[in-house]
């Protein structure tokens, strides 16, 4: 399944970008599309996944769940680092991020990294949204297989 998922994700990215090439090339639109797909998947997954878990105490509890259980099951690996300023900003760092490890780790493809992260951003946002947390998730890559996801919680 993992191999399949990686390949499918790959195809999705190329597919979305190819369909855009014929029309107007708008980078933002593609990212949004991928992000939306991730969002939908995140919603579905969290619904299935929290079926048997206890109620969450607070926001931190939810974040811990996301980065421990959710992340591990999705990417087969624990996240390497979770930091927070306790005011609604969380940074999740993955040192060898699954969807990036297949690419060269040099600077060459750094520009292409965002399209391979959009789906995951959506995944996290979707998961959180179904747990009742509205958020903005962005990703940042400075050196290749390492990437940081910043989650900014929107207070309602």
């Amino acid at each position: 399944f993992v191999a399949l998922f990686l390949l499918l994700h790959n195809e999705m990215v190329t597919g979305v970008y190819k369909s855009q090439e014929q029309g107007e090339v708008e980078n933002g639109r593609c990212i949004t599309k991928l992000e939306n797909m991730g969002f939908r998947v995140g919603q579905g997954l969290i619904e299935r996944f929290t079926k048997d878990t206890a109620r969450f105490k607070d926001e931190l509890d939810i974040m811990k769940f996301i980065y421990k259980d959710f992340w591990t099951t999705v990417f087969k690996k624990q996240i390497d680092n979770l930091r927070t300023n306790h005011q609604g900003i969380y940074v999740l760092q993955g040192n060898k991020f699954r969807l990036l490890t297949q690419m060269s780790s040099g600077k060459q493809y750094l520009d292409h990294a965002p399209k391979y992260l959009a789906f995951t951003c959506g995944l996290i946002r979707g998961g959180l949204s179904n747990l009742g947390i509205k958020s903005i998730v962005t990703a940042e890559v400075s050196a290749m297989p390492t990437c940081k996801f910043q989650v900014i919680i929107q207070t309602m």
Partner: protein
Amino acid sequence: MSRQANRGTESKKMYWYLPFPLPSASLRLMSSELFTLTYGALVTQLCKDYENDEDVNKQLDKMGYNIGVRLIEDFLARSNVGRCHDFRETADVIAKVAFKMYLGITPSITNWSPAGDEFSLILENNPLVDFVELPDNHSSLIYSNLLCGVLRGALEMVQMAVDVKFVQDTLKGDGVTEIRMRFIKRIEDNLPAGEE
């Protein structure tokens, strides 16, 4: 998953929660769901992007082909399967090894044509359609068409040209999902000179 246990001791009220399935089992289930849901999102997106179902089918097939072309490497590396001597053996490997490895199911092989170049894979349950219902206005959409592309692409990389299509689909009210595969020809002279 150890977290689950911790929580139980934290608050005694929670004792009636069902035990969490074994990590390996739940992990496997989850990643299959990740795949199924992702695929669903992809098809939905394609339906939005393309106007008619035929185009979506074509696109799914093309994506599947690209996946198959790469997947075969992963398959050969992991499965230890050697060269197949005839199409029947190929059918066996596809059903018993490949489907088992990637989708966790073992389809049955039936309906061989007398010439032995055509057979059907019967899928009792198709993990791709776990949470799917087809809306009425997409009656000609072949939801799992990606699979056809995957099979075609993978077999092409091992010098076999095949024709793959869905003949029955549980989504369309049939009792089972049936994939029909027809052997077209062996692809020759694909090897660069001097290599065996």
